[in-house]
């Protein structure tokens, strides 16, 4: 069973990111050539609390992290956005947002859309509303999965899952070993997993000792072995 293609219903849909790839073509047909696309490097802030509310974004390449800024200054990771997914639209569509910051995690190509155009497209009928509903349904499924994982899986399994998910979103081909550049600090990864930096260090040491992952800090490279992986990355 190739878990990457999400064919195994017993596994998380976290591995389904490639399934969304077709959405990009459908969005491109709707958007046409008018919207501007911008290439951004890792760590570029694409959207923040100061960004115009009428802007939405379509990811054409790369991986974007959405996070929520608290009044305390703390940042909480929400989700990843990848090829064919929209972000930033909730501010205009709902007049309220929970996704205040979007940062490129890899080289990205992101197309800027006018959120009012998006609303007009939904009201005009056709594919836009269906695409958004599908994305939100997928996200709801993902958030349920994340919640189940938080309760039922230990942090080491969740770290492996995140790395494999990130590699898939970044377009890394599945294999016995996957090498992916993850430009995130250990502290950020710890907050993402809901554990302390100290616990994160212990989890990383454990996985490294078992030969499941290697982290080359200097290049921010993570090498993930599929040897013991129940969410295996076997080649199709």
């Amino acid at each position: 069973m190739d878990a990457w293609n999400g064919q195994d219903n017993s596994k998380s849909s976290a591995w389904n990111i490639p399934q969304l790839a077709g959405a990009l073509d459908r969005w491109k047909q709707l958007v046409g050539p008018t919207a501007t696309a911008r290439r951004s490097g890792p760590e570029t802030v694409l959207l923040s609390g100061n960004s115009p509310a009428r802007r939405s974004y379509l990811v054409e390449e790369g991986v974007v992290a959405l996070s929520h800024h608290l009044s305390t200054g703390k940042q909480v990771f929400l989700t990843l956005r990848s090829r064919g997914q929209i972000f930033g639209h909730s501010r205009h569509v709902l007049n309220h947002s929970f996704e205040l910051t979007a940062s490129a995690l890899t080289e990205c190509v992101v197309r800027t859309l006018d959120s009012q155009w998006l609303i007009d497209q939904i009201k005009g009928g056709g594919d836009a509303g269906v695409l958004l509903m599908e994305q939100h349904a997928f996200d709801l499924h993902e958030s349920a999965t994340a919640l189940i994982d938080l309760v039922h899986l230990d942090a080491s399994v969740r770290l492996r899952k995140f790395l494999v998910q990130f590699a898939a979103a970044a377009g890394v081909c599945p294999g016995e070993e996957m090498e992916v550049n993850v430009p995130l600090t250990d502290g950020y990864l710890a907050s993402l997993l809901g554990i302390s930096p100290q616990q994160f260090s212990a989890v990383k040491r454990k996985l490294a000792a078992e030969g499941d992952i290697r982290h080359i800090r200097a290049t921010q490279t993570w090498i993930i072995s599929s040897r013991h992986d129940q969410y295996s990355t076997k080649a199709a």
Partner: protein
Amino acid sequence: MNEIPTTTPSPRTESDVFFWNRESARLTLWQWKQSGLLSTPLLYPAGAPIFDRGAAPQDAFLLERGIVVFEREPVAREKSGIYALCLPGNLFGHCSGGRVNASLHSAIALTRCIVYRISREKMLATLYKGGEAALFIVRQYLHNLLCARARATESSINGTKVRLEHLLLELASVLEDHSPAGAIQLPLKYKDLAAILGISPQQFSVIKKEMEGEKVIACFGQRNKLALRSSGSKVQFFKVHRYKRIPGIPSGA
């Protein structure tokens, strides 16, 4: 007679707009009813499955009354399989247009529930047709998503004691059955509350003891009564047996 709060939980964080409150739930239900997309109301007794784990996502459901629990297979006997609750006004079992795998959990009526089915075909037809109805559907999905994110984020913002307090206040707002003495009937075990909060039963026990020491909660009777003091009000729960799962899906009419 014990004092039962009739108000919704007091504001907590900047993300409060995404937490449950009775008024916004009422408004949402009214809007859905105007949409013409809802089935006739379906009644589920406590313990009845609305859909089972592994079911292919087809239609969405809207909860009008009661509480639905999402339950996956428990990993150990001492742990609960329940990991989240669905409260009135919220969608669940989201129709996905075929992009989402089978459901990872079962949806079971924790209490007597009134649920509407929203057919996938009707929803897609409305989206293709456009208009305010299409925008309403997208807004509802987006709102449900942001609510889910707000809940997930809450564990990073608030400590477990605060989250337990919020959970109990939320349950007090939604649960409708009362004991003769006026206490709210709570059909959840402590291990269920622990699982919903994402902690182990052992951690829950420690936190409960600490909150008892701080006089925020009190357990009495034969440990089947639980009182919570919060924001000047006192809520009393009477723990009752959790549902016994009813096999098969009733017709619901």
